[in-house]
């Protein structure tokens, strides 16, 4: 067996390994998907209350969406949806062999993070009645 020119690392030094940006987008895709799955019942409940006609459901809708904690969760889910959406579009393009080189894939990963955060901000402003 030929001698190795460079000694191979025996252990993964996890604290020295930094996830590259596309990897970060990828794991956030999984995390956001899992979060959206867990919160499906809340989202269906909000949908149900928003479409209800009796005064009870209208009052419940106002109380639920007016709760600061629920509001925070909903804006968080809004980000999760938009991140999952943007990263998903990026993965579809990668499947079509668009932007698979190192630099374009880094650029598109940055774009996913920026665009999904930007759209979350815009959605939050829209639902707070700014425009």
């Amino acid at each position: 067996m030929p001698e190795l020119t460079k000694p191979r690392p025996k252990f993964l030094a996890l604290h020295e390994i930094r996830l590259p940006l596309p990897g970060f987008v990828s794991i956030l895709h999984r995390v956001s998907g899992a979060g959206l799955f867990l919160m499906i019942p809340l989202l269906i409940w909000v949908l149900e209350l928003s479409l209800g006609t009796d005064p009870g459901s209208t009052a419940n809708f106002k109380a639920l969406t007016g709760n600061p904690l629920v509001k925070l969760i909903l804006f968080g889910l809004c980000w999760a949806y938009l991140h999952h959406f943007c990263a998903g579009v990026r993965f579809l393009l990668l499947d079509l062999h668009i932007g698979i080189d190192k630099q374009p894939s880094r650029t598109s990963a940055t774009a996913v993070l920026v665009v999904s955060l930007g759209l979350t901000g815009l959605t939050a402003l829209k639902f707070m009645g700014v425009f």
Partner: protein
Amino acid sequence: MKARIVVGAHYGLRDWLAQRVTAVVMLVYTLVIMAAIMGGAVSSHAAWRGFMAHGLIRILTFLFILSLSYHAWIGIRDIWMDYIKPTGIRITMHVLTLLALIGCAGWAIQIIWRL
């Protein structure tokens, strides 16, 4: 040439494709909803109800619910397959995920169809 021995459960390509097809359905639905919101579909309670009760939107919402359920099933199942090694616990999580998704799909469809 040596014959390749193909092993596995043989649902990989189907699920890979289903994940992407359902994603495109949801992408289109998302753009429709975003356009509707910008166009005033949430300006009042009556406008929102009227929009969601529209025949075409109702069908699109139905397709969205089915796509989301299938998409989430593949994604969540993959998470269990990646991280849960004991077969018994993993299969239990698979079953609970399926039941939760089917139950939620029924709930959501019922809301749309009651309008």
